[in-house]
């Protein structure tokens, strides 16, 4: 399995804890590789639990080393399953919190230190004016960089300072706890907004019956707001049929009129549909998203043809700072035996079974997240509020 060792851990003075954490990392990686763990919600939570234990176990002499170790862990998890973006997303968010804290610390130490030299004072000045916005600073640079004075290298601080006032271990663990809380409470946030969006006697269509968020959203609209509406569920043959049936059953139990329709009937019925609601797996920075059942993209395409609004529900942790340069790389293919039983290999017949799908940003009208509704073109902003550009790619050396 994962034979790659972590060189940064070798000089550790607590070998026992390290081997123990190594074992849990390896087993988590194995689970990711075998697809034994699926669903972005579970993956995100388990990654955070693992990270919490990892942080408790590792030793470091300066903050830079800590960051490097977290990045290395993130890189290993990302490599284990490149389409499980949840791992990378949560680790990048923790890194962003950590970096903010370090910046804060750095500013304080500059304040305390000799601020007599003109250049330091100026840097300081500049920093404090953008101080409030720093955590929301979207990109490492701004247009002004062109004219700015040569900057003091913050890298020096990262490396030289071995002793700081702030306990970074505590910072990271607190950040992890906060993020776990956030992820667990995501449905509440989304539902609050969602209720206003569903009207009485409306016909809704959802092509993603496996989404728990969509399910809770609909049930809540029925129960809390007491709306009567009809839900059309696409069958999702072959990977999602069971999910679609379960979904329909649950909705029916909550007294919601539910109709399962074949995938081929979407176009015919679209003219009567008021809204399309989709659950997402990952949302990219351009506003496009990966959804966990094939055929969703064509449903959204149909919706656009009929000018039917498409609502995508997504928790904040599904937001990825990556750009989908190559969509084919992100879309997963499954075993073809679900479509056709295995045949004599001499018969030349190709069967493909896409299990995820990419919906381009122009086919989505609005994203409903736990912090509000946003247009796809605004997603980049939300992403840069939560991630740092420097941590977008965890592989390779950080500059």
């Amino acid at each position, binding site marked *: 399995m994962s034979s790659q060792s972590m060189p940064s851990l070798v000089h550790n003075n607590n070998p026992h804890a390290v081997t123990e954490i190594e074992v849990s990392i390896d087993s988590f990686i194995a689970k990711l590789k075998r697809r034994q763990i699926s669903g972005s919600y579970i993956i995100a939570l388990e990654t955070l639990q693992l990270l919490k234990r990892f942080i408790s176990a590792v030793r470091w002499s300066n903050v830079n080393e800590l960051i490097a170790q977290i990045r290395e862990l993130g890189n290993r998890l990302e490599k284990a399953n490149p389409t499980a973006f949840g791992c990378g997303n949560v680790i990048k968010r923790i890194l962003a919190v950590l970096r903010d804290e370090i910046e804060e610390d750095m500013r304080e130490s500059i304040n305390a230190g000799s601020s007599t030299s*003109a250049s330091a004072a*100026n840097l300081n*000045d500049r920093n404090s*004016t*953008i101080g409030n*916005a720093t955590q929301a600073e*979207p*990109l490492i*640079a*701004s*247009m*002004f*960089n*062109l*004219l700015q*004075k*040569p900057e003091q290298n913050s890298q020096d601080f990262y490396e030289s300072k071995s002793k700081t006032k702030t306990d970074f271990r505590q910072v990271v663990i607190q950040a992890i706890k906060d993020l776990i809380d956030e992820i667990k409470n995501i449905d509440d946030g989304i539902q609050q907004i969602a209720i206003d969006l569903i009207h009485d006697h409306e016909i809704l269509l959802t092509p993603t019956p496996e989404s728990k968020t969509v399910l809770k959203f609909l049930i809540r609209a029925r129960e809390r707001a007491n709306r009567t509406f009809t839900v059309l569920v696409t069958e999702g043959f072959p990977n999602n049929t069971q999910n679609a049936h379960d979904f329909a059953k649950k909705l029916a139990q909550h007294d919601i009129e539910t109709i399962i329709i074949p995938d081929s009937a979407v176009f015919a019925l679209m003219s009567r549909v008021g809204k399309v609601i989709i659950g997402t797996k990952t949302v990219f*920075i*351009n*506003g496009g998203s990966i959804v966990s059942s094939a055929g969703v993209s064509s449903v959204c395409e149909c919706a656009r043809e009929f000018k039917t609004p498409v609502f995508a529900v997504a928790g904040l942790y599904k937001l990825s700072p990556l*750009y989908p*340069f*190559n969509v084919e790389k992100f879309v997963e293919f499954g075993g073809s035996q679900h479509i056709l039983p295995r045949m004599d290999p001499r018969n030349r017949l190709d069967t493909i079974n896409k299990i995820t799908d990419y919906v381009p940003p122009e086919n989505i009208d609005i994203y409903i997240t736990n912090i509000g509704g946003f247009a796809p*073109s*605004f997603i*980049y*902003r939300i992403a840069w509020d939560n991630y740092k*550009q420097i941590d977008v790619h965890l592989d390779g050396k950080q500059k």
Partner: protein
Amino acid sequence: MPTTDDFDITETYLKFLEEDSEMTMPIAAIEALVTLVRVKNPTTAAEVINLIKSGAEVLVKSIPNSVSLRAGCDIFMRFVLRNLHLYGDWESTKQHLIENGQLFVSRAKLSREKIAEIGIDFVSDDDIILVHGYSRAVASLLTHAANRFIRFRCIVTEARPTSQGKQFYEFLQEKGIPVTLIVDSAVGLIIDKVNKVFVGAEGVAESGGIINRVGTYSVSVLAHNAKKPFYVVTESHKFVRMFPLAADDLPMDRKILDFSRIDSEASLLSGPTIDYTAQEYITALITDLGVLTPSAVSEELIKMWYD
């Protein structure tokens, strides 16, 4: 060294452009303004502001195609104003500007390298890329991709009435990239064979639309129609505070359409040289600030002007 009286900002600007082929118009404008400040050596803040304002005005008026250099003037003005107001630190800012003139030029070049690094993922093996006009940023990105042994092919439009297409064709050939040259009117014919379109920009408007070599708009509409991604590769110092509403809503020195009788053959085709491509035709902007959606441009500008 020109003396105070005979300093001509337009001349200085043109000289900067001529001397260094790598220099872009906004940077040349900034350099010209820095030289102006150095030569006139103003002593009070009000003097500085007036000097730069009038210098920029003269410059914008005297150069026919002023969109790009306006971006440079704007960013310089804003930088000076901010330093005057926020820090009251004019002396050290002036010192910095005068001493580090060369630094801006090298940073601008660096920003193109950064763009190439950021944009490399947009070029993949077997791609056929359509390029319209000669842009240093596009050139740097494609060179970088070729150096990384990505095997792609390029189609370059002629970009009439200039010879930019020819220049770019020769440039790519020199770099060993398979390339072919087509007439501008053939874009519709080949757009289905193309995987993506790259263009540069003279200026990026607040809406996220771009002002570029004439013909960009038609290429973008064709790309949009054929559902091909249309990428703009540009440096962030070309973002300019303008909000054009239509393709012809640009500051131009003369009428776009001239129906008066023209006798000389030469001036027959001297129509507009730039056009405006609205944001809905642009898939993404590849800049030194990262890959931006068109709506992110206004935010960068707002950040600069109102924070």
